[in-house]
Structure formats: C-alpha cells, structure tokens
C-alpha cells in the first residue's frame, strides 16, 4: 500500500478514505452480491481482498492509519462459518488488542470496526459501509493524514 493510495490530494474537499479488508469466502462475496443487486453504498471504501480475516494483523490497521486512511474496516465470515475453521476467532482477538492500542495511541478505536458479513448478506454489506462512512465523516479527517505521507519503511 503506498501513501498516495490513501492520502487525499491537497486542495481537495475532504472525503473519508476507508480501507476495508474483506475475506475471500464471505465478505468479499457479500460485496459482490451488493454489487450485482445494485445496492447503493458510498464510494469511499477501498476493498482489499484477503483469504481470511485471520490474516489481518494489528500492524495492517496501524499502518493504514499511519499512511492516512480515515477508517479501517475488517470483515469476515460469521463465527462458526470460517472457511479455515477458526480464522475469524483469531481476528476477533487481534482486533480487540488493536482497538486497545488505538485508544492508547490516541487515534481512538472508533476509526476501526470489525464486522461479520456472509456471502448472502449483500444488503448488510451496503448498510455497514454506509454506517461506517457516516461514522468516519462525523469523526473528521485522520490527524495523521495531513501532510499526506507516511514515514517510509
């Protein structure tokens, strides 16, 4: 992920930039269903497909925020439905830690959200994206985004 991909261009009216990690088996298919069902949801969300929500490390979320994303969503299969048995349970534990870290670091845990969205829940996908975008819009721009660039590394 490069800094340009997430940081707003200078002079542009601020629009929330949201990174959504979606698992291949449920949430990404849910996004697909939302698409083919022609459900409307804000275009602020950039989806990154991963094989399992258990793949998402706390670092991914912190790094996205460091590079200037305004919010990060992590979506996976419902508990019990994970394609890899218990990857989403792992994700739940990790996201709990990440939320604590975000609070300690002063970013605030409400810039991150974990949601379970199954392949049949296109409607839920659209609703979550809308709700989360509104939530981020209320929070305002990520303070780290001003200036645009991450520190490299």
């Amino acid at each position, binding site marked *: 992920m490069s800094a340009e991909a997430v940081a707003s261009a200078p002079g542009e009216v601020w629009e929330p930039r949201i990174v959504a990690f979606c698992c291949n088996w449920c949430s990404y298919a849910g996004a697909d269903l939302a698409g083919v069902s022609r459900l409307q949801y804000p275009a602020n969300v950039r989806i990154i497909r991963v094989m399992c929500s258990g793949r998402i490390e*706390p670092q*991914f979320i*912190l790094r996205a925020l460091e590079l200037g994303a305004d919010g990060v969503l992590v979506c996976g299969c419902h508990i019990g439905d994970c394609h890899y048995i218990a990857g989403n349970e792992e994700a739940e534990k990790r996201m709990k830690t990440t939320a604590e*870290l975000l609070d300690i670091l002063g970013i605030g845990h409400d810039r991150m959200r974990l949601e379970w969205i199954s392949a049949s829940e296109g409607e839920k996908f659209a609703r979550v994206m809308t709700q989360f975008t509104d939530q981020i819009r209320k929070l305002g721009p990520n303070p*780290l985004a001003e200036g645009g660039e991450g520190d490299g*590394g």
Partner: protein
Amino acid sequence: MADEIKKLIKETSAFNCVECGKCTSVCPSAAFNPEFAPRLMVVKALEGIEDDPVTAKNMWACLTCEICNGMCPYKVNYSGFVQGLRTLSFKEGKLPICSQGGLIHTMQRLMANEKLKQNRLGWVTDDLKIAKNKGEVVLFTGCAYQLGTVFADKVGYEKEVPGSAVKILNAAGITPAVLEDEVCCGHDLLWLGDEDSFFKLMDKNVAALKASGAKKVIFTCPECYRTVSIDYQDFSGDLPFEMQHISEFVADAVREGKLKFNRMEKKVTYHDSCRLGRHMKVYDAPRDVLKAIEGVQLVEMERSRDKATCCGVNAWANCDEIGKKIQIDRLKEAKKTGAEMMLTFCPKCEIHFSCATHNKVPVEKSLVDIPVNDFTNFIASALKRS
C-alpha cells in the same frame, strides 16, 4: 557512501582491529550463525571486500549486545559500527524483516507524531500515589503498558510493571511524577537506523522531562535507561537531572532502611540483560536487592554478569531461527541451575524467552520450561506493607 563508511570506521575505531577474533569467539549470534562474525563484518568493511557493507544482510544478524566490545583488546566499538551501518542502510530504504510485521515500530513512529494525544496513563489505579507531570522524582514508565497490550494474549506479558514501580516508590515514601507527554524512548528506532523518528521522540521526551522539574528520573526498562542516559546525552547534551535504574534505587533504599521485604521462599536466577549489564554496567544492584529479600536464594547461571548471553533479538528486527536457538540455549542454562524462575528487568528479554517456550520447542520441554518473570513485579510482590 564510501566516505560515510570511512568516517564510521574512524569514529568506532574499527581500524584498530587486529583480527584476533575474540569478538567472534564470544558472539552469541556467531555461535549459531555460521554466516555472521563481527570480525568478518569489520574486516570486510576495512578491506573494501564487501561491495557495499550497507546492503550486507549480515549486519542485521548482530544483536548489539556489546559482548564483543567488552572482549576486544583494542576497544573497537562494534555496536556503534553496526548502528552507523544501519542508519546508512535505512536511508537507502533497506530494512530487515521486523517482528509483528513492524507493528512496534509503527507504534513508536505514531508516538513521534505531535498530532496525536496519547492515553499513556491508562495503567494508573486508585491505590497508586502519583503526581501528574510535575515532581522532583519522575518515573519514566517506558512502553511496558503498550507492550503488555500487544503481548498479553500472545506470551502472557503483563502490563503491570509501571504500577509495580510506583508501589515500590510509594513504599519508600516517594510520590513519583509520571508524564502524560512521555513517549517511547526511541531505542528500537535508533537501532533500526531510523534516526529522524528517533530525534523526534528524543526532543519530545527531553522537553517533557525538563518541564517536569525533575531532579531524579527512575527507569524500569534497561533500554530506556540506556537510551536516555547515553544516547540522549550524546545527541542533545547533558541532562539536568540524575538518572537511576529502579534496581539501584531499591538497593540504596534498602541500605538506608527505607524499604522492608517479607520473607519469600524462592530460588531464582537472574538474567543480566545486555542494556542494563554491559551497556550501563549495573550488575550488583539487582543482586543486592535479591540478597535483601529474606528467603530468596539466587543461583547464578554459568554465563552471568558481563558474560551473560543475549535474548536473541534486538530492536524487534531479527527474530529468526538463530534467535530461537540462542533463547533455547539460555533457557536450558537457566533450568540447569534448578531455579524456580528466571528474573530479568528487560521487557524484551522476558517477551522473547516466554515466546521461545510458548509453542513447540526443538528439545525436551522439561529442559527449558522455566518461567521468566519481571524483576520489578517480583520486588513489588515482596514489599512489606506498612
């Protein structure tokens, strides 16, 4: 680049190397890694054999534990040499594989950002007597609270170290000040070569410490202690306060009769972390503290004090199979003493050793299953309530 390396060779007296190989003979990394040797690294740079020492992977195999510095008859500063190379390497954008995907480094860089207001004192509970931001004695808490958040689930590292330190200071009749604006000391970023972020952190800490009106600053983490006492003073000039490690503070307080301990029947061994031991030369204070607790028996490991080996990882940068071998080796040594637990002050030593035995181990589990505990917590648990 060649000029910078020449300068580095001069600064760290690397040209004094007589190729005796004593450094390599004691290096904990070289003992398990046939591709790495401190002597070879320096000689290659001196002779210009390595095309570009900055891109050499081997430099990341160094643990910066300074056992070689102590052994070298000609006082070559190997760790300084490696640190200099890493700074050059970082400028070129070359990085090692970082533990936790680089999470810890990102956290530290975020702390350097002045736009974020940290919630640093989340560990403070009602029973702790503290002053906020201003006071004669400041407790520099370090990142124990943050690391505790990351590693509690993974290896059971507890975030109670700052709380324990406050309890100890309270028992000695001191109400320490803790700083809301304290940030990471920057140790890991400095040893990763990220000097820019390090300087940002340093400036913030120096400003916060000076504003507190501190006459004495107490550290629990050996890395913070080293970084503030040595690196901060090197880069930003003398600091206007006394610095002390908590073990030195407790040893003094016991001598003055300010601290009393309960009897505790425990057989323990003590791991000298490289930052507290070889870097800061604090060997006796922790041992004096153990002697002061009645019933505690200290059994030394074969390699202790300035010969103590390393926990196998530095700056969250080179956690690999070599590190694991070093850890298993050290744990075997600790277990062999027959102690119930290994104590150490360094949060990283504790995390790395606990991690080594957390999953499958390549040897019989009973040879290495010794709990590794934090020394500060141990002292706090032995305190006599007045």
